[in-house]
């Protein structure tokens, strides 16, 4: 049903039925949400859908992150439902997270009926006003007829250009309003991308040819554009040492000889030091986030900048560029590649090799599966390259970013921009629903996991193949680390005085649990847990003194890493 079609006679449908039919036509097969008074007509219509599987979550934030997990793994817009008032406010964190990491999510919320709006009605909140700053665009729908335009347009906007979340707020009486549908609209899809300016491409190619010490700097836009292959070709043709942001891990395979690793606050020392000496940054789909750049005024002080990004508002926002190319990075790189000359740059290559040898990322304890890096690597040893890795936010996230052998794009789902604790479990659930054939491992910490622990019940209900790898130090680890290092060891409100029995908690939610602390053979226990199907929590205690190194002190330039 991809063609617009005219039924023999108009169909009399409610707004809610129109929404469900349009979602079906968009190709939506799974959606997560929670019903409530103001979206009950939508649920009444969804009940009759034979092709959409509804995932009932235990908190709306879980539904929002399930949509994110599906969207991050597939690149396609995904949908979540919530009711008005608290249902919607519970969604906000997941929507804001999608905005900062440019994830296409379409959130559909119920609203009180139009004649009640503005009266402080039961469960009324100004959803439109609340979501303006955290969505790419939002709608308050005023009639059932309007849905025929709004829904396809929301999907088009979510997926076009720089992707992002779109919210559609639908008053209850609009959901109930009956209208005749004469013709169904085309499903909304991403706009095509115009080609880049040839003069700018030529200027960029010339700068790359003339550069003595170039660095290729890949960001999340490379993932969104599906441009990892073009980025690799550029790196190889121009012989460019390459760094990635946190979100771009996997865009160049971990064992690629040109890869220096991740840049930034917890990046590879050789990556940060190479950038410090570089005379040209080729920035592709990245936005100079402060966790990546450190002190911006001293970031890559000698480097000219070629900045390629689909969002014109990112060009020259934080760092002035010498050549700024607005456009889809895949399209731009495709056009740029024929203009690139092969280059050896033996002096720079020798310097890069020396930095790689003398300032590598150190991963102590790799042999011990009950140490941070060793656990990450032991998990990787049990998984194939189709496996998806989700994380929460904190020390475990950085350990996984550093030590996991990232090989492919869209296999690493992490909250980069908003840094949302609680992201991991529901996002992993969404990814597992989208790709039931693959294993999804979620690295989490005891602080993060408790922020959306209720979705363990949803994991059991859906019997998803999600493995939560819990690194438990009974502490807000990264807070504890920063207090220890930068606040005179005045640790406060970072150590939990009460910690649940996570193994028993998982079991109480209907999820199997394995405790590596007590396993006679932790590697064997891990392998068994990761390779048998179904949800499982893998618990491992971590020493509170373990830190994430290196670390660039807040406000310092990236060359000033501690713990290298």
């Amino acid at each position: 049903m991809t063609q617009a079609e005219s039924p023999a006679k108009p169909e009399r449908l409610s707004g809610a039925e129109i929404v469900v039919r349009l979602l079906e036509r968009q190709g939506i097969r799974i959606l997560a949400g929670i019903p409530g008074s103001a979206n009950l007509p939508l649920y009444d219509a969804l009940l009759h859908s034979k092709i959409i599987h509804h995932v009932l979550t235990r908190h709306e934030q879980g539904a929002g992150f399930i949509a994110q997990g599906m969207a991050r793994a597939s690149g396609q817009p995904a949908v979540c439902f919530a009711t008005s008032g608290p249902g919607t406010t519970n969604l906000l964190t997941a929507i804001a997270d999608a905005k900062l990491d440019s994830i296409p999510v379409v959130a559909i919320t119920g609203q009180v009926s139009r004649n009640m709006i503005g009266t402080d009605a039961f469960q009324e909140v100004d959803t439109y006003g609340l979501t303006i700053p955290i969505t790419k665009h939002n709608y308050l729908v005023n009639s059932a007829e309007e849905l025929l335009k709004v829904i396809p347009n929301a999907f088009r906007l979510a997926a076009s250009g720089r992707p992002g979340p779109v919210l559609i707020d639908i008053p209850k009486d609009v959901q109930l309003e009956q209208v005749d549908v004469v013709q169904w609209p085309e499903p909304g899809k991403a706009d095509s991308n115009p080609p880049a300016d040839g003069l700018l491409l030529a200027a960029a190619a010339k700068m790359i040819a003339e550069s003595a010490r170039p660095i290729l700097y890949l960001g999340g836009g490379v993932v969104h554009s599906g441009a990892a292959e073009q980025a690799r070709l550029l790196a190889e043709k121009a012989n460019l040492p390459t760094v990635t942001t946190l979100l771009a891990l996997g865009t160049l395979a971990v064992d690629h000889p040109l890869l220096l690793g991740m840049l930034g606050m917890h990046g590879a020392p050789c990556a940060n030091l190479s950038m410090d000496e570089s005379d040209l940054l080729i920035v592709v789909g990245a936005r100079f986030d402060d966790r990546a750049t450190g002190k911006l005024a001293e970031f890559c002080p000698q480097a000219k900048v070629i900045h390629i990004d689909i969002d014109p508002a990112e060009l020259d926002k934080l760092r002035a560029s010498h050549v700024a190319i607005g456009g889809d990075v895949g399209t731009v790189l495709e056009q740029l590649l024929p203009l690139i000359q092969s280059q050896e740059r033996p002096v720079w290559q020798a310097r890069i090799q020396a930095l790689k040898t003398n300032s590598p990322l150190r991963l102590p304890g790799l042999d011990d599966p009950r140490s941070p890096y060793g656990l990450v690597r032991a998990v990787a040893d049990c998984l194939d390259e189709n496996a998806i890795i989700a994380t929460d936010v904190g020390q475990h996230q950085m350990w996984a970013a550093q030590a996991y052998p990232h090989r492919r794009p869209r296999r690493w789902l992490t909250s980069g921009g908003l840094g949302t604790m609680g992201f991991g479990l529901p996002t992993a659930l969404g990814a597992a629903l989208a790709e039931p054939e693959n294993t999804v491992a979620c690295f989490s910490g005891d602080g993060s996991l408790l922020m959306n622990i209720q979705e363990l019940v949803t994991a059991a209900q859906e019997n998803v193949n999600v493995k939560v790898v819990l690194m438990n130090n009974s502490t807000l680890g990264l807070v504890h680390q920063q207090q220890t290092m930068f606040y005179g060891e005045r640790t406060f409100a970072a150590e939990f005085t009460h910690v649940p029995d996570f193994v028993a908690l998982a079991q109480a939610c209907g999820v199997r649990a394995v405790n590596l602390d007590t396993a006679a053979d932790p590697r064997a226990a891990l392998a068994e847990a990761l390779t048998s199907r179904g949800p499982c929590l893998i618990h491992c205690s971590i020493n509170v003194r373990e830190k994430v190194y290196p670390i660039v002190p807040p406000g310092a330039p990236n060359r000033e890493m501690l713990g290298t």
Partner: protein
Amino acid sequence: MQNICSNRTVLELTVNNHPGVMSHVVGLFSRRAYNVEGILCLPVGDGDTSRIWLLVNEDKRLLQMIKQAEKLEDVQKVRRLAADDNLFARLESLIMA
């Protein structure tokens, strides 16, 4: 005496005319603690579009603000007007008269 338009500039936005547009536009400024000194808004033609004029301080963030405004789905066009001839100066003289 200083005119209200001294060291200020006017942005002229052509926008879709519906109840949420003004919030979208002024939200860009308020979230950056960038004050809008004056606002005018009038429907254009058959009323499907409106024009919004914003009187704002000259600021190094202005070019970024224009780019952010251009990104809004309901904003069709953004123009920066010459500072010496604008509606706000005329409005001021009208009010002060």
